[in-house]
């Protein structure tokens, strides 16, 4: 006996095996991302009021990435439809377009990561006076660090403890910090190495928001990479199956498309949650 329903669907369930398998797998993926989303909610609800960041991420870039993923889901479904209509040439085109979209997404994402990883919070201590600087690293050498102050910053527990927390609404900003925050937005800040007490970039360690941001988007990016690898395989060596078993090959494209749609759908939720809200 051989395993039935590998290609044709079973009558009473209306599914072939792999389609059921991928849906079950996606159900578990829902739980995986669901748990991370619930972690996001708990961290956000538990944060010190006023310290959860808004507008830290680049919305135009995020929107562009969202559009890239939406386009890729269109090309994925069209690729499958082309095979269903027996148009192998069109399939190749659409499949290639999907792979290009995946690549663009990852490139944009890595630019965003780079932006966060070169963003520093520097705590200095001169005498017993502390100061907190915040901005992108421009230059770094043995005795000094040059930062380009950025419009958006995070309020870490360390900065809050030193009195550099969020300004209470309506109140006057602390003269020291407020002046720097606005007047020197464009100017560069040079900090002597010898005065630096603590220097940390906006990596996952810096703040729970960044931790969940990197974890969620990193896990999502891993899914994008995984899906892209599988689709690249179907585009390359895997495409031989079209000649021997076209129906099974079409099913494979559908399966990878279902996974890809799920990954895109996760992003549709990630984007507003991390960028907009």
């Amino acid at each position, binding site marked *: 006996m051989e395993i039935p329903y590998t290609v044709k669907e079973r009558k009473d369930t209306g599914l072939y095996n792999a389609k059921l*398998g991928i849906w079950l797998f996606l159900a578990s993926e829902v739980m*995986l991302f669901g748990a991370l989303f619930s972690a996001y909610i708990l961290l956000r609800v538990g944060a010190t009021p006023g310290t959860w960041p808004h507008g830290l991420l680049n919305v135009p870039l995020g929107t562009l990435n969202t559009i890239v993923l939406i386009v890729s889901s269109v090309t994925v479904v069209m690729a499958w439809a082309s095979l269903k209509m027996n148009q192998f040439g069109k399939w190749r085109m659409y499949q290639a377009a999907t792979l290009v979209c995946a690549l663009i997404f990852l490139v944009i994402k890595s630019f965003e990561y780079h932006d966060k990883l070169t963003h520093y919070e520097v705590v200095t201590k001169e005498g017993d006076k502390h100061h907190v600087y915040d901005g992108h690293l421009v230059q770094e050498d043995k005795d000094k660090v040059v930062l380009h102050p950025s419009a958006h910053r995070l309020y870490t527990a360390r900065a809050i403890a030193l009195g550099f927390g969020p300004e209470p609404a309506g109140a006057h900003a602390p003269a020291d910090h407020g002046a720097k925050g606005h007047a020197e937005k464009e100017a560069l800040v040079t900090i002597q190495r010898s005065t630096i007490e603590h220097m940390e970039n906006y990596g996952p360690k810096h703040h729970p928001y960044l931790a969940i941001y990197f974890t969620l988007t990193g896990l999502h990016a891993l899914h994008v990479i995984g899906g892209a690898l599988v689709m690249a395989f179907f585009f390359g060596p895997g495409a031989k199956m079209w000649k021997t078993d076209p129906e099974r090959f079409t099913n494979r494209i559908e399966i990878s498309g279902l996974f890809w749609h799920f990954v895109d759908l996760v992003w549709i939720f990630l984007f507003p949650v991390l960028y907009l809200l």
Partner: protein
Amino acid sequence: MQYSHDTHNHTHEAHDHEEMGFWTKYVFSTDHKWIGIQYGITSLLFLLFGFVLMGLMRWQLAYPGTPIPVFGPILEKMLGSAAAGGVMSADLYNSFGAMHGTIMVFLGIVPLAFAAFGNYVVPLQIGAPDMTFPRLNMASYWLYFLGGVVMVISFFLPGGAAQSGWTSYSPLATIIPTQGQTWWLLGMVLLINSSLLGAVNFLATIIQLRAPGMTWMRLPFFVWAQFVTAFLLLLAFPPLEAAGVMQLMDKLFGCSFFLPTGLIISGKVADVSGGGSPLLWQHLFWFLAHPEVYVLILPAMGIVSEILCNNIRKPIWGYKSLVYSLFAIGFLSFIVWAHHMYMTGMGTAISTFFQTTTLIISIPSVIILTVFFITLWGGSIRFNTQMLFTLAFLVMFGIGGLTGLPLGFNFVDLFLHDSYYVIAHFHYIVAPGTIFALFAGVYYWFPKATGRYMCDFWGRVHFWCSLVFMNVVFFPMFTQGIAGMSRRMYDGGVNYSQAANKGLLGALPDSAIYSNVIISIGAWMLLLAQIPFIFNFFWSMRNGRKVESDNPWDATTLEWQTPTPPPHGNFAVEPTVYRGPYEYSVPGAVRDFIPQNEIDNKGKAKAPKS
């Protein structure tokens, strides 16, 4: 699929089978039966390993601070200063405790109950040629194996294996200075992925590959149990994976998912961003770990129902009640998790909610047990080894279940939480409960897998010794717990005893301390009592009494209608199912059982055998 060509295909495949090399046949096999056996043997070895860890810990509990005889010097040689002078250090005790739990649950019982028995039996019982995704099945086993290797290696790391309990509560688990915890998390991620693949495979197999005529209500109860179990694994494990990934981020990248603001470690404010939530870990952990309890017990119930009906020669009383109860348990098990967290200060309203759902979930569990007991009524019982284990399961599981009810009330839990009472309660469910059912399953299906019986005499020795010593081990723990003995204590409670605290109200009575010795001796005896089983298992593979037929127990389900042992592809001809799973002692039938694939009751199987 054209079944008319099956006979031809079968011979063709058999030919292929012979041509397969050693590696593809025995190591990287995709045959569900062989993968089941791989899972079975690996997980039995892990069970033994986990038990040995506990055997060593029991010395420390019974005779705190004294060198462990014989094994102490070996431990010192292997693990160095953690066992200096052959004495188990507190760190070593902690890591053995954490790894005992992890190994027993994730590397022992779940792989044995779900993956091993499920792999071997489910496709046979539903009349399928194999699992739906044989290669995923193989990947699942090897991920499990890799996870096991990672866990075992972690013992030899600097600082030793994970030390903060099998629950790995953060912040302790995050800040504890051992690499073992990181390896534990990596191992868990591997194990979780393994069981996800397994769960997808089981569900797809049961939904897609049922033979013609095998409708849902004709499924043997064992298949139903595995079906619900697979759903629990599929949906409950990913949150733990998420939690594991977050704790890994905490450990490797210094994040603060589970570390609160202002965390102080050994008198210094920790260099972390803070802002995390320790409760988050507990929620995510128990969201898995409570359904996990049912993952441990449901396959055991499935095995019990098969063996029960087979040995009392009558149908199960209330098959549908069983199935619906399973579904009720499966659903409710997702909304009871926080009853493990009454003491965390999450609030009385939430506690009350979880107390209510917890008590509701006991109803379907009691229904299942009641159905089994009523099924016994008026049966003519065959007392073979597997039946003895099954009957013991009913009683032992009953004790475990009933002692769990008080723990469900949060006002009682205030006193019993984290005490030996809790240990006794869940060990009664899992050790003499699930493990007895698993032993029963081994004795029951052994003839199908090997073509030989296991020795009945040594089986009985194994059973009676195990039954007696299981109770010697776990029953005194109830009294210890009620006396106030806390779990995870390195010295067995000596520091809190009346002897050490003269006149202190509420100090542990001498009887509780003395029980440690009795329990420890019981545990070592229990370890010895497994020798007949191990010997019997391996000896009977080659030298056991040969079976007289493909259906030595006169059973009705489809796995007994295959050749023994079943060849690659299982059935010579695809079976067609005509009746329910437990048609024993049907009035007017020639024999006292009618196999599921028999069209009439004249005693002739429709499908020719082999």
